[in-house]
């Protein structure tokens, strides 16, 4: 990942590909499900994210299929992508842990 870190969209796309390879609209659906409807990727946005992640070798083309006469390309997570996702997930978990601890301390101290 570049020095500017991973965006939420990139994180969700990589997460969507963590268990199986998916095609474009499959990724859109999975990202929407993972974010509980909060993030709906536009197709232009999705391909911008896919291009960037492919350029960083975090995902790659898995296979191509024709579905109802239309092209579907399936993308899969690379080993490098899995490592980047793992690192980002650990970072977010750590941040969430800090937040939880501080909130617990705040409630314990009776601060309004």
């Amino acid at each position: 990942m570049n020095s500017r870190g991973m965006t939420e969209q990139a994180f969700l796309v990589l997460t969507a590909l963590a268990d199986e390879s998916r095609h474009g609209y499959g990724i859109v659906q999975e990202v929407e499900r993972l974010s509980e409807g909060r993030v709906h990727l536009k197709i232009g946005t999705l391909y911008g994210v896919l291009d960037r992640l492919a350029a960083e070798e975090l995902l790659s083309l898995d296979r191509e299929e024709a579905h109802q006469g239309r092209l579907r390309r399936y993308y899969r997570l690379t080993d490098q992508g899995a490592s980047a996702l793992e690192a980002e997930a650990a970072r977010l978990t750590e941040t969430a842990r800090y937040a939880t601890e501080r909130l617990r301390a705040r409630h314990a101290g009776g601060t309004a």
Partner: protein
Amino acid sequence: MTTLEDRYRRVLRLLPAAYRAEREEEMVSAFLDGAGPDDENARPRWPEIAGVAALAVRIRLGGATPRSAAWGRTVRLTALIGLAFQATMSCVYLAQTLGVYGLLPLPFDETPIGDPASADRLWHVTRDLSSLLWIAAYVALVRGRPRVAKATAALGLTVYVLSGTEAAESFVLVVATLALLAGYHRDAPAHRHPGRLAALPLVAGAAVFLVMMMSTWAMTASSRSPEWPGTWVWVWSWLPPSGLFCLALLVACAVCLAAHLTGPRWRSPSVPLALAILTVPVTLARLSYLNPGSDQATDTMNAVTVAQAVALVLTGTILTVIGTRTLPARRTQRKPAIDVDDQRPA
């Protein structure tokens, strides 16, 4: 092909042909998978169109190919030069503002600034201090903070438009701000310039301020003489912001041309193209100063303005030719990996 598919394919024409050759089929497929049932009135929604437009900007100005990287550098350089000039002028405006409010002993005429503690005064102070926004935008850009630069430039442009200042002088600001918004996207390489470059507008602004003060004083003095308009009236056409930018651009264009002729080492597509882009708003701004008056002074100023516009158009054309010839070649288009035409239902 359904109506919706046809309309979406038209939207995709915003993308470069080489990218479409690789991605169009799967993008159409993904879009149609998520679209509702087709009817004659179905069309892509605006957020989808905006998504494709943003992708088109990123690809055309990104670094995926040497050519798009060169265009990206061109647009970012356009923004940097435009903001550098506006920051320079902002330093001049701030010095003039200090004079108007009596904080600097400068020989300014009475300028309406509203009564103390009135809403009118607040508006004048806000407008006058908005120059700081352009300085902040330039410094932020030079120091590798494009997001801050974008926000402050957009705010500066809004205040400028609301202030009702000469609309023609805003052309450069509009072009520079658009270049800033388009050129500094997420995929653009982060670049932090040396700190001394951030101080450039202050030094240049001080020099311009001195020149303007002396010129204005000389012209005002000569206007009171019986020999008015005299031989120096042509100077007026160089004193507005677009006149000064015209002068700076013509000098920069001459240096750029000389460097290009010196040898291949100094040849780059981005510098001549950025300068050529900036000649357009400056030419339009200069032409807005043409005045239908018929006295000798007006005739002289009109002649100088036309000469400025002609010089800008000429140099802009030459730089465009040089820049486009120096651009890396277009990438060869690739066909999609599998041909789906045979499998598409009729």
